[in-house]
């Protein structure tokens, strides 16, 4: 944590500075007139519906919402919302959104991106945005495949993945997006699933209210090129054992009949165990604390995600801590400079101190 008094409120809200709506809003107002062009059954529909349903509840003016996306299927998102939006270029949305957020504290800025967009071509911008903690919200639609270019493996595809560009199977080791974000010391990191509208909405709301960068990985199904990549989390037969639910202040317990739990295991790491096998039973379980300052804890949680084909992963808010936001500090320096030196006098500046006059 910073030891400098930055004059920021102690409980920053992600929406501070954004004008409140004067009248109640409804979902329809947020639906644009553009025809949605994702494939039938695409997980993006569910996320869009949840988003359109959730935005009116935020209670901010619609014209003060700005969406910035990159390139990929999910990056068409802004076209379908009647807010301000920019569909930019591949991988660069976090950089563009940084300029937007710095220039305009009165906007709620959202970045919509995918696994290829954010983690491959735009990986650099993603990690730097996260470490700076710019006040913007990043929704990473992870379908573990390149959809728009018709089915090449992505940086989150499992090893051995056979695609058009990997006929003998991919030899790439994939990224775990949550681990990556935590490695960059992101202040808000969460994971949710396209099909669980309630959970998705709750995570989005928490992200909106977080001051700083909120990073949300959304497991999103691509029925065309990577169907059932998240089947373990959706199939009623397997999902109880697959989803490790993270609820702040509660023991991390899951599985059919709640038989499984997360315990500390060795140096800075966590493990899943049968509760029946634990010496003190449930008392040995980790109580989830998303406010843990050291990102190592959330990182350890993120490592409970399978590296290859997904059978098990924590879902929920891994980390949510208050740090000063980059754009607030940048603006603060401008204000401090004006206060201490006065509003700039450009004529005096260009004249400088060493002049001579020719008569």
């Amino acid at each position, binding site marked *: 944590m910073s030891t400098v008094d930055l004059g920021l409120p102690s409980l920053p809200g992600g929406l501070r500075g954004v004008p409140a709506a004067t009248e109640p809003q409804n979902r329809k107002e947020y639906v644009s007139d553009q025809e949605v062009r994702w494939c039938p059954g695409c997980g993006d529909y569910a996320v869009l519906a949840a988003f359109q349903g959730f935005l009116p509840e935020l209670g901010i003016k619609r014209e003060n919402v700005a969406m910035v996306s990159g390139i990929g299927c999910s990056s068409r998102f802004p076209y379908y919302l009647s807010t301000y939006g920019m569909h930019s270029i591949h991988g*660069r949305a976090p950089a563009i959104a940084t300029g*937007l957020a710095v220039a305009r504290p009165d906007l709620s800025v959202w970045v919509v991106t995918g696994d290829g967009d954010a983690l491959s071509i735009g990986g650099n911008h993603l990690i730097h945005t996260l470490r700076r903690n710019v006040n913007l919200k990043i929704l990473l639609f992870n379908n573990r495949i390149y959809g728009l270019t018709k089915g090449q493996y992505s940086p989150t595809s499992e090893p051995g993945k056979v695609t058009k560009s990997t006929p003998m199977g991919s030899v790439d080791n994939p990224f775990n997006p949550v681990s990556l974000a935590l490695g960059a010391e992101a202040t808000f990191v969460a994971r949710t699933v396209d099909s669980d509208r309630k959970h998705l909405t709750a995570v989005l709301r928490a992200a909106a209210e977080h001051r700083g960068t909120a990073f949300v990985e959304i497991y999103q199904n691509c029925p065309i090129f990577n169907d059932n990549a998240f089947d373990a989390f959706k199939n009623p037969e397997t999902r109880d054992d697959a989803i490790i639910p993270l609820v702040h202040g509660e023991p991390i317990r899951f599985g059919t009949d709640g038989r499984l739990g997360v315990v500390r295991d060795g140096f800075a790491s966590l493990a899943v165990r049968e509760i029946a096998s634990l010496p003190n039973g449930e008392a040995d379980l980790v109580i989830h604390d998303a406010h843990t300052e050291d990102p190592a804890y959330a990182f350890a949680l993120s490592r409970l995600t399978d590296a290859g084909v997904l059978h098990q992963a924590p879902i929920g808010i891994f980390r949510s801590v208050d740090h000063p936001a980059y754009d607030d500090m940048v*603006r603060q320096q401008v204000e401090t400079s004006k206060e201490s030196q006065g509003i700039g006098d450009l004529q005096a500046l260009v004249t400088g101190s060493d002049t001579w006059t*020719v008569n």
Partner: protein
Amino acid sequence: MNRTVTIEVKQLDRVVIRFAGDSGDGMQLTGDRFTAETASFGNDLSTLPNFPAEIRAPAGTLPGVSSFQLHFADHDILTPGDAPDVLIAMNPAALKANLRDVPRGATLIVDTADFTARNLKRIGYEENPLETGELDAYHVVPLNLTGMTVESVKEFGLTRKDASRAKNMYALGLVSWLFQRPVESTIDFLQSKFAGKPDIRDANIAAFRAGYNFGETAEEFSVRYEVKPARMATGTYRNISGNLALAYGLVAGAQRAGLPLVLGAYPITPASDVLHELSKLKRFDVTTIQAEDEIAGVGAALGASFAGALGVTTSSGPGISLKSETIGLGVMLELPLVVCDIQRAGPSTGMPTKTEQADLLQVMFGRNGEAPLPVVAAQSPADCFAIAVEATRIAITYRTPVIVLSDGYLANGSEPWQIPVIENLPKIDPNFTTEPNSTNDKGEPVYLPYLRDPETLARAWAIPGTAGLDHRIGGLEKEDKTGNISYDPANHDLMIRTRQAKVDGITVPPLEVDDPDGTAKVLVLGWGSTYGPIGAGCRRVRKVGGKIAQAHLRHLNPFPPNLGEVLKSYDKVLVPEMNLGQLAMLLRAKYLVDVVSYAQVRGMPLGAAELAEVIGNLVEETAGIDDDARHLGEAAANLTHGEALHIEPNGLHHPEGAR
């Protein structure tokens, strides 16, 4: 000490002086101070810093030599001078590295302290050149500057190493005396620069004074020189470098438009000083973002423009390559964006600290698809201010990225600048759209983001936060007026042509031609930083009786409306460039005029004498004079100014620093 020899004061009309030493010797600072003294005295001046890319190349080696050349005069001048009249060499490497540029008869002031057998051998001298007679064609003033510096700062109890570091100030003091420069500003400067380190401050001031007094009292010199203040247009002047002028111009442009400025930039030579200067100007509503890379720099700037600020990014060629895709997005989004390319020698990493103007075709065409954008170029260090204001005007008025071309020579070089009155600069109107600008089929008011001003073809620009005007823009092809995604063939053709027509239609002032009596048959046309050398070359040709017309382009896209006509009214058009003929290619393609390209890419500005020769030859060739009968070029190239500068020592040399 009482003088036994009286000092004569000689008048000169101009002097070229070069300070050279190790990169760690503070030669740039010394040159800057001498420039400030010279500027405050009222001479016209032009400077050329030249330094290695390495911060501290090994001491005493040829690659580690750093130099600063200053040309000052009692009349208006255009270049930092082809060749120095005086070289101050702080060590053997500095002497060796610079000697080839120094004409015979010029003066060499040499610090002898480092002329040891070992140091000499290291740079390939078998014997001491001060003793072999190989410098007989020069006026050599060997002085143990380091020894005398150490002696002069004894009382401060510094180590020998620290004490000797003030030798640049000793040398500055001496040449300040020699050319009768005012010294107060340098003392004030040292006071404030070293305010926190009193012993260093006092030692530097003492060394500076000691150097000055050495000239005054030591009988080493019998002559001082005077270069009278220049006769310049009335007004108030200051000295300014190109990068500083560019930074101020960007702020002025933003202020005249009433917009905050957001700079997104990544450190790169020779553009970083613009980032540094703008970072100091937060109280002018300037926000600077040092981005994670070049792409993020331009991305943040474009995001800020979308937000309704003036987005600016600054870089050099390699960075512009990385920014290309985002600049193309800016072309499609039709948002204001100022992109400054401070060119350096390429390709690839090239020679980062050396100058070149080989990015012209890159900025004109280096994007995918038909992605036209305006290009402007500064012609002198001070002109960087005006060109930045002009770029801002075009960017905001026409909603387009604009490229500003400068280069390493302009960026680091400096010249006197008549300070403009900010209030008198034209206002720039962002003309934000705040109300619906059309109606839909049902007669309801709507906002069409790509509805255009019929005059300028600029699109209607509404910024986030404007109620009722929410819209989505992006890099996919736009439907005319609505800005919705469109794959319609006819629409694409229309939009391509419309974006081109918008850039082609930008109002640009006509090209002015300097053709004194209107009878020249040959025109010299340049762009960018060659303005000074071309002007100086033309003057030489005119002095020896040649007729020559000169014009210089500040607008490269679109070209001035009368350019075609101008080109066709001369028998020959010479286009000198620090590239392999990029402007020449554009002119041939657009106007079908077979211009004569003169191309030099050495990482250094073109020389006035070399250009004079080329121009003179072309003038005679055009007049049908045979090769062997030509003389104009040679005469113009060999023109010398007044009397050569001989610093006459009194024959009282104490090469080993007896004092």
